[in-house]
């Protein structure tokens, strides 16, 4: 244990990304006075993890990746302890022990620790030239390693795999994506959308290998290739492991805090332990599509969950309405919006409406007239309205035929719903010309 004196804080937020910042902003809305400390093991101000692909592509530098202004912490009276790792939590004493020797005593604690990349045991996986792709340090490491015409193998055809693939292609590397299942992006797209995405990858010059895993990474100290399950050898200079992310829960495993796959939280983003909250990729919060707690490691849910946690930590009751998997993808010139269950889990009670034309594809998955999933490819402008129906659990019984119509819009929803969307015209308001606007009396044809 360190000898340094313990510092006290009202709010201790572990994690400096979407969840931590969401909480800090909510706290400062309702509590301008009490101290907030954010601890992060990364040396940067809050930067956007999804932008690491833009960094690797050479399109953004670190300053351009910050999602809040440079004076964010000072303006909001937030202490940020960067490049500091929390090593241990003494929950009953409310003490966070830092690797630097410092101790922080909290009144309210938020665990916004994010995720860690899944790294499978693989022969040769420790060679120089094997990377993961989750945090800025990963992008920096790959950036320092690759040269023009480097050959890369990306293990995993999910979101992270496709995003690093695009960045590597922009750096003029050759890329082979190795996906274990039969199609890329298989957890967030249906078969049709996957095949459209795969075609876009191929058009861009990416080689896509499905139904295979990498059995071995070959080379001396440095990678010189991989061997697939089927024995095929692929020569390459680097390997990027992108098979998934797990909640980063080492601080709470073995404690009294309930952990399933992630840290289990209620609708207030509170753990089962008093004054300890969690959000983001580390947490398992309510998913309104599955009606149960699930991991939904996406930015919006992390930020909103953090926000809800922040209000509650500051004593203002707020409830997380729930999140679900929702993603907007735009790789290789293809725009895709997806959310919820994009493939019905069984044949009963499920209905699918879809259409495909001119490269565009839209699909809505319904159950008992509730929208449970959606995929929009190319034409994505109306995906927000459909996602909103999903989120608000609106029965589409009376307008289901219109959902994919060209002119679909709020006007097809029940009157009370679109009226709520438009908001009420404030009483006594006048038009641009200073006259109270009014409807004309109906004129009868008789």
């Amino acid at each position: 244990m360190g000898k340094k004196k313990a510092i006290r804080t009202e709010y201790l937020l572990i994690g400096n990304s979407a969840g931590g910042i969401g909480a800090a902003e909510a706290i400062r809305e309702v509590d301008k006075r009490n101290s907030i400390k954010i601890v992060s093991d990364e040396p940067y101000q809050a930067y956007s993890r999804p932008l690491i692909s833009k960094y690797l592509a050479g399109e953004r530098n670190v300053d351009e990746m910050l999602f809040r202004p440079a004076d964010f912490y000072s303006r909001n009276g937030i202490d940020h302890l960067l490049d500091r790792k929390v090593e241990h939590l003494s929950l009953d004493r409310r003490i966070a022990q830092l690797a630097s020797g410092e101790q922080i005593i909290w009144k309210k604690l938020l665990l916004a620790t994010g995720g860690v990349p899944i790294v499978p045991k693989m022969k040769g996986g420790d060679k120089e030239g094997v990377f993961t792709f989750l945090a800025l340090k990963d992008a920096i490491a790959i950036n320092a390693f690759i040269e023009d015409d480097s050959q890369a193998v990306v293990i995993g055809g999910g979101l992270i795999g496709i995003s690093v693939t695009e960045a590597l292609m922009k750096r003029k590397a050759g890329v082979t994506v190795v996906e274990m299942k039969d199609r890329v992006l298989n957890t967030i797209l249906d078969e049709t959308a996957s095949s459209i995405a795969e075609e876009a990858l191929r058009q861009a010059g990416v080689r896509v290998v499905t139904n295979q895993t990498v059995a071995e990474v070959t080379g001396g100290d440095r990678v010189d290739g991989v061997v697939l399950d089927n024995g095929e050898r692929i020569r390459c200079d680097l390997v990027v492991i992108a098979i998934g992310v797990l909640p980063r829960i080492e601080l709470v495993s073995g404690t009294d805090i309930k952990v399933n796959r992630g840290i289990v939280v209620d609708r207030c983003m509170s753990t089962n332990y008093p004054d300890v909250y969690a959000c983001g990729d580390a947490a398992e919060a309510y998913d309104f599509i599955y009606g149960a707690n699930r991991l939904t490691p996406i930015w919006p849910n992390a930020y909103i969950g953090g926000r809800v946690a922040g209000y509650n930590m500051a004593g203002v009751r707020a409830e997380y309405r729930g999140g679900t998997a929702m993603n907007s993808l735009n790789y290789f010139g293809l725009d895709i919006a997806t959310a919820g269950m994009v493939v019905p889990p069984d044949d009963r009670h499920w209905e699918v409406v879809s259409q495909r034309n001119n490269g565009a594809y839209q699909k809505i998955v319904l159950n008992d007239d509730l929208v449970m999933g959606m995929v929009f490819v190319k034409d994505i402008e109306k995906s927000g309205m459909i996602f909103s129906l999903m989120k608000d659990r609106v029965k589409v019984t009376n307008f289901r035929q219109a959902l994919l119509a060209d002119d679909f819009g709020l006007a097809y929803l029940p009157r009370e719903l679109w009226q709520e969307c438009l908001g009420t015209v404030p009483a006594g308001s006048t038009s641009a010309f200073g006259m109270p606007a009014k409807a004309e009396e109906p004129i009868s044809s008789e």
Partner: protein
Amino acid sequence: MKRVYVKEEACMGCGLCRVYCLAEHSRTRDIIKAFKRESPRSLPRIRVERNGEVSFSLQCRHCDEPWCVYSCFTGAMYIDEVTGAVAVDAEKCIGCWTCIVACPYGALTRDRDRKVVAKCDLCPGNDVPACVANCPNEALVFAEDGKAGQLVRN
């Protein structure tokens, strides 16, 4: 904050709001040149919805709890501290369109030429937004009100 509200019963669905919105956000701000000479043509930030006899126009509601802002991972979408309006910093926007999926109203548009999101900015510099000023039936009003989009906090 001040928002644009539509009196649906007075809206004819003529679409002039959309025409003037496009012109206002064009380089020349000249309605003819905006449509016939400018390339790429500027984008309107207002939609006109029609279904049978119902019609109304709709632009960003400038929500008090804006899902687009909460969903934006670049920090491009933000709430203007002075006006309370939901605004976009085009320098930061990368055109990921997450805000479009997050917006319940379909009020955001892809500017595919610039690869940034286009949205209602309430026509800064004008006393009254162009859509309101040019609505022939005075169906649009620009008025103060504190309620729109209460989504997270209960």
